[in-house]
């Protein structure tokens, strides 16, 4: 008997239109076979009864009447001067604007002071535009999503596949883009830095100009600037801290931690080569704490394991192998989450390239955690906890402690006594 199957189908007993007679019999049979089965059913009934106890608050009839009037007034309001009259340009509602602002918060990565100004620049652009065509807004949101690599807001879930399908990797930078990248690099000029950073600019430019570079061309200059700056910033932070922390006798503890953060950050952004290089540099250090070194070893092993899993020629088999590793090897903290995001991206890209995304019955779908359906059923609670903890760490990094707490609390709720539950508890205690 599969307890997961039983638990998943148990709530549906309450809604018998969802289960065939055969399935009902199967659930009941399972319940009878297990001593705690009857308790499970009583608990289910208790939850349903508790939900039933919550009554609906009816609005005042006058409010409903005025609602209709207000809606009709709003939709019949004349078009403001300068606002396009065509229906295909949808003004940003207050909710959408708030969401856009929330998404733009993702850009405020503490490591890069220059990015803080970009948010204001983008918002100013939005103000100036008054309304963005739907496709441009989608591009802005997708760009911000690529920057943050954090879970998409639910309403944007469908956009990821569509946008990724349109993106083209740029083999070479145009002069204009190159200038933008250089301008972004100049943001670092006002940051005090050691001599080890000499030559950084040339190295980064070589990186972004390489054929495998992932810079993306967008029609809006401000989005291109945003992307270019962020991509360069992430890379620059990685390279800079790598050089910064190393001294003649290896790394000091502060440097090791900075390097670890850099490696984690690179891994989370899919730059596994940089992550691996920095993890190895840490292992070469002579003054790192044993616990941290062990964690780094686990991350390195995880990178190697995941690379092996990705060696299968069949893309679907590859996804499955990585997903299985996610299930079976949640011991490393950062890399599994990073590969998990990578798996998401690959799943989406595969779906788009094979045009499955346009067939709703076959398209890959994602739940709230961004877990694709083809993976969800083999993920264990422990893996979900790791994902949640990693997301929490990421939110902490982005400065959103409310979201971080939410992630940790959800991880804690899954299993408070497990290793990852205790990690979540620890993070919560640190956040206060």
């Amino acid at each position: 008997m599969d307890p997961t199957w039983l638990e998943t189908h148990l709530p549906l007993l309450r809604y018998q239109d969802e289960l065939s007679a055969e399935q009902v019999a199967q659930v009941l049979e399972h319940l009878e076979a297990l001593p705690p089965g009857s308790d499970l059913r009583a608990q289910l009934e208790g939850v349903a009864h508790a939900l039933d106890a919550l009554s609906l608050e009816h609005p005042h009839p006058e409010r409903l009447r005025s609602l209709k009037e207000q809606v009709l007034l709003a939709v019949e309001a004349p078009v403001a001067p300068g606002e396009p009259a065509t229906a295909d340009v949808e003004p940003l509602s207050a909710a959408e604007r708030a969401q856009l602002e929330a998404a733009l918060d993702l850009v405020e990565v503490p490591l890069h002071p220059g990015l803080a100004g970009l948010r204001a620049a983008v918002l100013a652009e939005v103000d100036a535009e008054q309304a963005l065509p739907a496709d441009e807004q989608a591009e802005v949101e997708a760009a911000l999503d690529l920057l943050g690599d954090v879970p998409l807001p639910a309403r944007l879930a469908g956009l990821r596949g569509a946008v990724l399908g349109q993106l083209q990797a740029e083999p070479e930078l145009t002069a204009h883009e190159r200038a933008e990248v250089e301008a972004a690099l100049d943001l670092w000029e006002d940051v005090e830095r050691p001599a080890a950073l000499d030559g950084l600019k040339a190295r980064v430019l070589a990186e972004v100009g390489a054929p495998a570079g992932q810079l993306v061309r967008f029609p809006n200059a401000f989005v291109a600037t945003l992307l270019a700056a962020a991509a360069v910033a992430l890379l620059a932070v990685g390279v800079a801290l790598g050089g910064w922390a190393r001294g003649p006798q290896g790394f000091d503890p502060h440097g090791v931690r900075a390097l670890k953060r850099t490696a984690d950050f690179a891994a989370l952004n899919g730059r596994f080569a940089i992550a691996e290089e920095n993890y190895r540099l840490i292992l070469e250090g002579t003054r790192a704490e044993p616990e941290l070194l062990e964690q780094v070893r686990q991350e390195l092993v995880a990178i190697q394991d995941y690379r092996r899993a990705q060696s299968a020629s069949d893309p679907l088999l590859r996804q499955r192998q990585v997903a299985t590793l996610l299930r079976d090897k949640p011991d490393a903290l950062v890399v599994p989450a990073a590969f998990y995001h990578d798996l998401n991206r690959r799943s989406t890209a595969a779906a788009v390239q094979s045009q499955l995304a346009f067939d709703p019955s076959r398209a890959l779908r994602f739940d709230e955690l961004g877990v694709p359906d083809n993976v969800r059923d083999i993920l264990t609670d422990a893996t979900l906890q790791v994902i949640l903890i990693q997301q929490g760490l990421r939110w902490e990094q982005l400065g959103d402690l409310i979201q971080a707490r939410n992630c940790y609390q959800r991880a804690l709720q899954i299993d408070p006594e497990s290793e990852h539950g205790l990690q979540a508890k620890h993070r919560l205690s640190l956040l206060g």
Partner: protein
Amino acid sequence: MAIDPEQLARNFQDGDAPAFADLIDAYQERFYRVAYRILGDADAALDVVQDAFVKIHRSIEQWDAASKFSSWAFRVVTNLAIDRIRRSTRERKAWEHRAQEEPAYLDDTTDAGLVAQDRKRLVEEIKLAIEDLPPGQRTVVALRHYEGFSLKEIAEIRGCAVGTVKSTLHQAFRSLRNSLGPQALSRASAIQGVA
């Protein structure tokens, strides 16, 4: 005879502007119920319903008439409600405020009064438990438990697979079960038995 709401939507999309007012009549109460069940606050729910109708009016071109209008429209409502949860910290206060507004039964020691006390306590507990659910789980509970949508319909509304809805519902029930605890669950069943 009332016109089928799906037909009303098609008429409106085809340029029959007055059909929009009829659409409001046809859907406002259902929209409200769903929004209220997700948000737990009447004023917030009414705001969401209003925003939803405005959005539907402005975006009707985006509705694919080959699919069900109601699925598309409820997606607009649930997305707006979820957005509101995510960006609003006032919601918790709304729940707490409403809890304080419940009539006081504590002085009533008759049998009926004791049941009422139990019910009041249970209502407060379930409100808190629902508030702790992630927005997606709340939405699935609202649509399935309170509004009677099938898992398939919910999948269409939320734009996800049926399996995801099933799994989300399971997670929601599990979270509610854990939040409420055995005592509250027993009390809920006992109260329901009395009722």
